[in-house]
Protein backbone atom coordinates (compact mmCIF):
# COMPACT_ATOMS: atom_id res chain seq x y z
CA UNK A 1 0.00 0.00 0.00
CA UNK A 2 1.16 3.52 -0.75
CA UNK A 3 0.47 7.13 0.22
CA UNK A 4 2.13 10.45 -0.55
CA UNK A 5 2.14 14.06 0.61
CA UNK A 6 3.76 17.22 -0.66
CA UNK A 7 4.25 20.52 1.21
CA UNK A 8 5.01 23.77 -0.61
CA UNK A 9 7.35 25.40 1.91
CA UNK A 10 6.71 28.93 0.73
CA UNK A 11 2.95 28.52 1.03
CA UNK A 12 3.26 26.68 4.34
CA UNK A 13 5.17 29.66 5.75
CA UNK A 14 2.25 31.92 4.81
CA UNK A 15 -0.55 29.55 5.86
CA UNK A 16 0.77 28.20 9.13
CA UNK A 17 2.58 29.64 12.10
CA UNK A 18 3.83 26.44 13.72
CA UNK A 19 5.43 28.44 16.52
CA UNK A 20 1.98 29.44 17.70
CA UNK A 21 1.35 28.34 21.29
CA UNK A 22 -0.02 24.79 21.39
CA UNK A 23 0.36 24.11 17.67
CA UNK A 24 3.20 21.56 17.80
CA UNK A 25 1.68 19.83 20.84
CA UNK A 26 -1.55 19.10 18.97
CA UNK A 27 0.25 17.26 16.16
CA UNK A 28 3.55 15.94 17.45
CA UNK A 29 4.54 13.63 20.28
CA UNK A 30 7.13 14.84 22.76
CA UNK A 31 9.91 12.89 21.08
CA UNK A 32 8.93 14.35 17.71
CA UNK A 33 8.99 17.86 19.21
CA UNK A 34 12.51 17.16 20.50
CA UNK A 35 13.52 16.04 17.06
CA UNK A 36 12.20 19.32 15.63
CA UNK A 37 14.07 21.53 18.10
CA UNK A 38 17.29 19.55 17.71
CA UNK A 39 17.20 19.75 13.92
CA UNK A 40 19.53 22.04 12.04
CA UNK A 41 16.48 23.51 10.33
CA UNK A 42 13.42 23.14 12.59
CA UNK A 43 11.07 24.54 9.95
CA UNK A 44 12.06 21.84 7.43
CA UNK A 45 11.72 19.20 10.13
CA UNK A 46 8.19 20.33 11.05
CA UNK A 47 7.03 19.91 7.47
CA UNK A 48 8.98 16.72 6.89
CA UNK A 49 7.38 15.02 9.89
CA UNK A 50 4.00 16.45 8.93
CA UNK A 51 4.30 15.05 5.38
CA UNK A 52 5.37 11.66 6.79
CA UNK A 53 2.25 11.56 8.95
CA UNK A 54 -0.01 12.66 6.10
CA UNK A 55 1.49 10.18 3.61
CA UNK A 56 1.06 7.31 6.08
CA UNK A 57 -2.46 8.47 6.96
CA UNK A 58 -3.35 8.14 3.26
CA UNK A 59 -1.73 4.71 2.87
CA UNK A 60 -3.39 3.46 6.06
CA UNK A 61 -6.80 4.90 5.18
CA UNK A 62 -6.69 3.24 1.77
CA UNK A 63 -5.43 -0.07 3.11
CA UNK A 64 -8.36 -0.47 5.53
CA UNK A 65 -10.98 1.70 3.73
CA UNK A 66 -11.22 3.94 6.79
CA UNK A 67 -13.54 6.92 7.01
CA UNK A 68 -11.77 10.29 7.36
CA UNK A 69 -10.38 11.19 10.77
CA UNK A 70 -8.18 14.04 12.03
CA UNK A 71 -5.61 12.29 14.17
CA UNK A 72 -2.08 13.34 13.15
CA UNK A 73 -0.77 12.83 16.69
CA UNK A 74 -1.63 9.11 16.54
CA UNK A 75 0.92 8.62 13.75
CA UNK A 76 4.25 8.13 15.46
CA UNK A 77 7.43 9.00 13.56
CA UNK A 78 10.50 6.96 14.50
CA UNK A 79 13.36 7.77 12.17
CA UNK A 80 11.89 7.00 8.72
CA UNK A 81 9.26 4.61 10.08
CA UNK A 82 5.76 5.73 11.00
CA UNK A 83 3.49 3.69 13.27
CA UNK A 84 -0.27 3.80 13.69
CA UNK A 85 -1.94 1.42 16.18
CA UNK A 86 0.10 -1.75 15.63
CA UNK A 87 0.98 -1.07 11.99
CA UNK A 88 4.29 0.32 10.71
CA UNK A 89 5.02 1.98 7.41
CA UNK A 90 8.28 2.81 5.70
CA UNK A 91 8.70 6.32 4.33
CA UNK A 92 11.09 8.09 2.02
CA UNK A 93 11.26 11.89 1.91
CA UNK A 94 12.77 14.32 -0.53
CA UNK A 95 13.59 17.83 0.65
CA UNK A 96 14.47 20.82 -1.45
CA UNK A 97 14.42 24.52 -0.60
CA UNK A 98 10.95 24.75 -2.13
CA UNK A 99 9.18 21.60 -1.03
CA UNK A 100 9.15 18.51 1.16
CA UNK A 101 7.77 15.34 -0.38
CA UNK A 102 7.13 11.99 1.34
CA UNK A 103 6.08 8.59 0.02
CA UNK A 104 4.85 5.97 2.47
CA UNK A 105 4.68 2.26 1.67
CA UNK A 106 4.15 -1.09 3.32
CA UNK A 107 6.48 -3.22 1.24
CA UNK A 108 9.15 -2.41 -1.27
CA UNK A 109 6.92 -2.74 -4.28
CA UNK A 110 7.13 -1.44 -7.77
CA UNK A 111 5.71 2.04 -7.34
CA UNK A 112 6.59 5.09 -9.34
CA UNK A 113 6.21 8.66 -8.26
CA UNK A 114 6.56 12.04 -9.89
CA UNK A 115 6.50 15.63 -8.65
CA UNK A 116 5.18 18.42 -10.87
CA UNK A 117 6.10 22.03 -10.42
CA UNK A 118 3.14 23.70 -12.01
CA UNK A 119 -0.33 24.48 -10.75
CA UNK A 120 -2.15 22.94 -13.71
CA UNK A 121 -3.77 19.53 -13.80
CA UNK A 122 -0.86 18.30 -15.92
CA UNK A 123 -0.04 15.62 -13.36
CA UNK A 124 -3.41 13.96 -13.85
CA UNK A 125 -2.93 13.85 -17.61
CA UNK A 126 0.55 12.38 -17.30
CA UNK A 127 -0.82 9.81 -14.89
CA UNK A 128 -3.60 8.80 -17.29
CA UNK A 129 -1.11 8.37 -20.16
CA UNK A 130 1.12 6.28 -17.96
CA UNK A 131 -1.70 3.99 -16.81
CA UNK A 132 -3.05 3.55 -20.37
CA UNK A 133 0.42 2.66 -21.60
CA UNK A 134 1.24 0.10 -18.90
CA UNK A 135 -2.19 -1.55 -18.92
CA UNK A 136 -2.41 -1.35 -22.70
CA UNK A 137 -5.86 0.25 -22.82
CA UNK A 138 -7.19 3.32 -24.61
CA UNK A 139 -6.44 6.64 -22.94
CA UNK A 140 -10.17 7.45 -23.00
CA UNK A 141 -10.88 4.34 -20.92
CA UNK A 142 -8.81 5.64 -17.99
CA UNK A 143 -10.20 8.01 -15.39
CA UNK A 144 -9.20 9.09 -11.88
CA UNK A 145 -12.06 9.35 -9.38
CA UNK A 146 -12.56 9.56 -5.63
CA UNK A 147 -14.53 6.86 -3.81
CA UNK A 148 -17.02 7.43 -0.97
CA UNK A 149 -14.23 7.89 1.58
CA UNK A 150 -12.57 10.51 -0.60
CA UNK A 151 -9.78 8.13 -1.59
CA UNK A 152 -8.65 8.50 -5.22
CA UNK A 153 -8.76 5.44 -7.43
CA UNK A 154 -8.19 4.39 -11.03
CA UNK A 155 -11.24 3.59 -13.13
CA UNK A 156 -10.95 1.57 -16.36
CA UNK A 157 -14.07 1.69 -18.52
CA UNK A 158 -15.82 3.35 -15.59
CA UNK A 159 -15.10 0.50 -13.15
CA UNK A 160 -12.91 0.97 -10.09
CA UNK A 161 -9.72 -1.11 -10.11
CA UNK A 162 -7.68 -2.00 -7.04
CA UNK A 163 -4.59 -0.15 -8.29
CA UNK A 164 -3.01 1.70 -5.34
CA UNK A 165 -2.78 5.41 -6.11
CA UNK A 166 -2.11 8.50 -4.04
CA UNK A 167 -2.32 12.15 -5.10
CA UNK A 168 -1.15 15.26 -3.35
CA UNK A 169 -1.04 18.93 -4.22
CA UNK A 170 -0.15 22.04 -2.28
CA UNK A 171 0.60 25.50 -3.64
CA UNK A 172 2.84 25.27 -6.69
CA UNK A 173 3.41 21.52 -6.45
CA UNK A 174 1.54 18.34 -7.30
CA UNK A 175 2.59 14.72 -7.14
CA UNK A 176 1.34 11.23 -7.75
CA UNK A 177 2.47 7.82 -6.58
CA UNK A 178 1.10 4.70 -8.22
CA UNK A 179 1.78 0.98 -8.03
CA UNK A 180 0.98 -0.78 -11.31
Amino acid at each position, binding site marked *: MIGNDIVDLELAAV*QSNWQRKG*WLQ*KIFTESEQNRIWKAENPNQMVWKL*WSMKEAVYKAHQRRFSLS*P*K*YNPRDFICADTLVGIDTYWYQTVSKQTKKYVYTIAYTDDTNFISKVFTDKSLEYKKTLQYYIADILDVNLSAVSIKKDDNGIPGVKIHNKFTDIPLSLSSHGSFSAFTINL
Partner: protein
Amino acid sequence: MTKEELLSKLKTIIEPYVQNQEEFQHLSEDTNFIDDLEINSANLVDVILDVEDEFGIEIDNDGMDKMLTVKASIQVIQDKLVAK
Protein backbone atom coordinates in the same frame (compact mmCIF):
# COMPACT_ATOMS: atom_id res chain seq x y z
CA MET B 1 -25.32 29.47 24.35
CA THR B 2 -27.79 28.59 21.60
CA LYS B 3 -26.79 26.44 18.67
CA GLU B 4 -27.19 29.47 16.38
CA GLU B 5 -24.76 31.52 18.46
CA LEU B 6 -22.33 28.64 18.50
CA LEU B 7 -22.56 28.20 14.73
CA SER B 8 -22.03 31.91 14.15
CA LYS B 9 -18.90 31.90 16.35
CA LEU B 10 -17.60 28.81 14.54
CA LYS B 11 -18.12 30.48 11.16
CA THR B 12 -16.09 33.50 12.26
CA ILE B 13 -13.30 31.17 13.40
CA ILE B 14 -13.04 29.15 10.21
CA GLU B 15 -13.45 32.02 7.73
CA PRO B 16 -9.75 33.06 7.56
CA TYR B 17 -8.75 29.50 6.58
CA VAL B 18 -11.45 28.90 3.95
CA GLN B 19 -10.20 28.56 0.38
CA ASN B 20 -13.54 27.88 -1.29
CA GLN B 21 -15.64 31.00 -0.63
CA GLU B 22 -18.59 29.79 -2.67
CA GLU B 23 -19.01 26.71 -0.46
CA PHE B 24 -18.62 28.95 2.58
CA GLN B 25 -21.62 31.03 1.46
CA HIS B 26 -23.71 27.85 1.44
CA LEU B 27 -22.37 26.46 4.68
CA SER B 28 -24.57 23.82 6.31
CA GLU B 29 -24.15 21.26 9.09
CA ASP B 30 -22.92 18.72 6.54
CA THR B 31 -20.16 20.99 5.24
CA ASN B 32 -16.78 19.29 5.36
CA PHE B 33 -13.82 21.53 6.25
CA ILE B 34 -11.29 19.86 3.95
CA ASP B 35 -13.41 18.50 1.07
CA ASP B 36 -15.88 21.40 0.76
CA LEU B 37 -14.21 24.49 2.21
CA GLU B 38 -10.74 23.34 1.08
CA ILE B 39 -9.19 24.29 4.40
CA ASN B 40 -5.59 23.12 4.41
CA SER B 41 -5.25 20.12 6.72
CA ALA B 42 -2.44 21.78 8.67
CA ASN B 43 -4.77 24.74 9.30
CA LEU B 44 -7.30 22.50 11.06
CA VAL B 45 -4.96 22.72 14.04
CA ASP B 46 -5.43 26.50 13.99
CA VAL B 47 -9.20 26.05 13.85
CA ILE B 48 -8.99 23.79 16.91
CA LEU B 49 -6.72 26.19 18.82
CA ASP B 50 -9.02 29.11 17.94
CA VAL B 51 -12.05 27.12 19.13
CA GLU B 52 -10.27 26.40 22.42
CA ASP B 53 -9.51 30.10 22.93
CA GLU B 54 -12.95 31.33 21.92
CA PHE B 55 -14.96 28.88 24.05
CA GLY B 56 -12.49 28.43 26.90
CA ILE B 57 -12.42 24.66 26.47
CA GLU B 58 -9.77 22.05 25.84
CA ILE B 59 -10.17 19.72 22.90
CA ASP B 60 -8.51 16.37 23.51
CA ASN B 61 -7.42 13.85 20.88
CA ASP B 62 -10.83 12.16 20.76
CA GLY B 63 -12.50 15.48 20.07
CA MET B 64 -9.91 16.48 17.50
CA ASP B 65 -10.39 13.19 15.59
CA LYS B 66 -13.95 14.16 14.76
CA MET B 67 -13.57 17.83 13.89
CA LEU B 68 -13.82 17.50 10.12
CA THR B 69 -17.37 18.77 9.61
CA VAL B 70 -19.51 21.61 10.96
CA LYS B 71 -21.91 19.16 12.57
CA ALA B 72 -19.23 17.15 14.35
CA SER B 73 -17.49 20.32 15.55
CA ILE B 74 -20.69 21.72 17.05
CA GLN B 75 -21.22 18.41 18.84
CA VAL B 76 -17.67 18.37 20.22
CA ILE B 77 -17.90 22.00 21.40
CA GLN B 78 -21.31 21.44 23.03
CA ASP B 79 -20.07 18.33 24.85
CA LYS B 80 -17.04 20.23 26.18
CA LEU B 81 -19.18 23.22 27.26
CA VAL B 82 -21.51 20.92 29.19
CA ALA B 83 -18.57 19.24 30.92
CA LYS B 84 -17.05 22.60 31.87
